[in-house]
């Protein structure tokens, strides 16, 4: 029946038969099964045991060991059966049989004693808990010894995973189980349960092997559930001596033992100490080779040292965080200083109002630290003045840099090229050569001949220049060609007109689209505003126009730039 179940099981990702798996000798299984039978007499049981002379000899040796300490020495099987009782005999036989289930060299490259040392810590831990749990000490020991046997079987089936043993051995019980899933696609408790059932192990031991990580099913007897809890606690107690994070294992053991058996921290620590004290003795009794066992005090010291290191790490982390914040503030301050510097440099590109020729003024208000708008004017000889106003697409530092480039080109090229159309075409070609991210510049450029009051104007995709006569809109000069920076071969036509007695207004959308009560200024609102303020002196007029659309205390939505050129006064006006 169980063979059938196991045959259909896929163990560690492989289909296996029970005969392929490490198992206790058949004679041992017979003894275990006989022990469970209530009908069997001690003499019959002794006879069954005596059928296996090697097992008998080992049984007498173990039974007389200090660890399993019988009151009196037993020298015969019959005596052993009588003194030990059927249940203790069963457990002792099982321990011996399981220990011998795998030969020392059964798993290539793996020292089985290392596994048994690990298992022995769990067995000793479980035995320490027996009294608290109200269970038989040897029963707990056996369960502890067998609870992870499934892992040994998985390593036997998949010896290529042996290299991961040290990781498995140092992992916390829960983590070890997760690692098993990664490595073997199954877990030791799952395999353990299958094996225990296939060997017809007593149900309480099979349950403990199968359910010391997960809650046992509801139909499991309460006493067997207690054994599961003992094994779960034993797992963590053993981990105190084997895992990497000993402090965590100690804390977890204290919590678990308090939850399961009402132990306080001191009691748990005392039990953990007794584990350390007993491993060597139990190893001698079972004939398992173990290394030197650290005392609980040593483990605790190591754990506290780690805690101190972690505290130091925490302090260091805090210190680093403070350093990072300070560094961020330093960078922010540096960035702020650089933006201020950029702003100063940018403002220096604009003409100084104090040094302006008569009849021309400008104003630039930035929405951000730096602006994408600019204007400029300078004399070009014979009383003529070259002027421009431009707006770079987008905002921020990239717009400001393109603005600086365009302003420099205008200054540099404009001194030699007085035709605004040709000048814009030259600047356009330069900008097209290095255009990035589709950025472009809308620009108005012109020359005003003060003597003849003649204006020549070219508009590259910018808002129309507005020519206000003495009392009304005289003309608008919209763009006749697209902005700079888009097509290198663009031709820029010019408009020529006289500015007698009126003013020419060049502006950016920060003025046209400025929010006013009831919406945005728009062309109609702008013309009305220019008409209303037209009587003011030039500089005062520029400030008044800006002030009428800038609400005190409110940040600008967009850069606002304005350039005003005033035509020569017509006599009599």
């Amino acid at each position, binding site marked *: 029946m169980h063979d059938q179940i196991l045959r259909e099981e896929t163990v560690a990702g492989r289909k296996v038969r029970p005969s392929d798996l490490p198992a206790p000798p058949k004679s041992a299984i017979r003894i275990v099964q006989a022990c469970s039978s209530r009908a069997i007499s001690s003499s019959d049981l002794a006879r069954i045991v005596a059928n296996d002379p090697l097992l008998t000899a080992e049984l007498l040796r173990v039974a007389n060991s200090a660890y399993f300490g019988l009151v009196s020495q037993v020298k015969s099987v019959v005596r052993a059966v009588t003194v030990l009782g059927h249940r203790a005999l069963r457990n002792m036989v099982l321990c011996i049989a399981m220990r011998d289930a795998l030969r020392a060299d059964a798993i290539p490259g793996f020292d089985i004693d290392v596994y048994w040392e690990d298992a022995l810590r769990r067995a000793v831990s479980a035995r320490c808990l027996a009294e608290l749990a109200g269970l038989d000490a040897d029963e707990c020991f056996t369960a502890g010894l067998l609870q992870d046997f499934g892992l040994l079987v998985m390593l036997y089936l998949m010896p290529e995973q042996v290299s991961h043993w040290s990781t498995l051995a140092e992992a916390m019980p829960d983590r070890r189980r997760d690692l098993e899933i990664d490595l073997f696609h199954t877990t030791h408790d799952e395999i353990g349960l299958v094996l225990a059932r296939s060997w017809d192990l007593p149900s309480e031991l099979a349950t403990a092997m199968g359910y010391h990580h997960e809650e046992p099913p509801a139909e499991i007897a309460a006493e067997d559930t207690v054994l599961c809890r003992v094994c779960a606690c034993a797992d963590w107690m053993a981990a105190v001596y084997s895992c990497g994070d000993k402090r965590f294992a100690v804390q977890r053991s204290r919590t678990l033992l308090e939850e399961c058996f009402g132990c306080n921290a001191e009691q748990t620590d005392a039990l953990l100490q007794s584990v350390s004290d007993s491993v060597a003795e139990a190893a001698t009794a079972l004939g398992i080779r173990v290394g030197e066992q650290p005392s609980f005090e040593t483990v605790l010291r190591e754990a506290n040292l780690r805690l101190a290191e972690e505290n130091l790490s925490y302090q260091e982390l805090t210190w680093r965080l403070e350093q990072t914040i300070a560094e961020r503030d330093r960078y922010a301050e540096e960035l702020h200083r650089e933006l201020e510097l950029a702003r100063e440099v940018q403002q220096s590109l604009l003409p100084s109002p104090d040094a302006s020729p008569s009849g021309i003024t400008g104003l630039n208000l930035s929405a951000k630290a730096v602006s994408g708008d600019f204007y400029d004017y300078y004399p070009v000889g014979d009383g003529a003045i070259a002027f421009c106003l431009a707006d770079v697409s987008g905002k921020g530092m990239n717009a400001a840099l393109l603005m600086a480039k365009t302003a420099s080109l205008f200054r540099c090229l404009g001194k030699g090229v007085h035709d605004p159309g040709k000048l814009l075409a030259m600047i356009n070609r330069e900008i097209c050569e290095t255009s990035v991210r589709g950025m472009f510049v809308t620009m108005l450029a012109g020359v005003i001949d003060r003597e003849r009051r003649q204006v020549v104007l070219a508009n590259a995709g910018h808002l129309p220049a507005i020519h206000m006569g003495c009392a009304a809109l005289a003309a608008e000069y919209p763009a006749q*060609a697209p902005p700079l920076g888009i097509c290198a071969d663009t031709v820029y036509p010019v408009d020529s007109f006289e500015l007698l007695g009126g003013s020419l207004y060049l502006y950016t959308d920060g003025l046209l689209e400025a929010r006013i009560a009831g919406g945005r200024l728009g062309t109609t609102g702008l013309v009305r505003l220019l008409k209303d303020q037209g009587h003011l002196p030039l500089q005062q007029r520029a400030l008044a126009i800006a002030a009428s659309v800038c609400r005190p205390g409110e940040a600008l939505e967009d850069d606002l730039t304005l350039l005003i050129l005033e035509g020569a006064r017509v006599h009599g006006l």
Partner: protein
Amino acid sequence: MYPVEEKQGFSVVCLHGEVDLSNSPEARRTILNCLKKLRHVMVDLSAVEYIDSSGVASLVEGFQYARSNNLEFGLIGVSEAAMGVLRLARLDQVFHIYPSLDDRLGNGSRG
């Protein structure tokens, strides 16, 4: 996220609402991604209520990318609001503009 439709070998990027500094990087990314995938890309501006210079820059970049890579890039169904901005800046001289994709497919005349 701007929707993209694929129709008869064309990627149609549908910009909508206000295309300004806050969402023009997304418009730019979408347009350039389409140009890297398909040779023919149209931007549908029929649902655009407002477009600022950064939004126009994303169209300009698409135009420039297409031109330097011998791809097709155009605008379709340009809303009044968007057309106002394009006309004012004379960008209607730059972009290929069609009333609809059908007009482009039926060799519709350049707007």
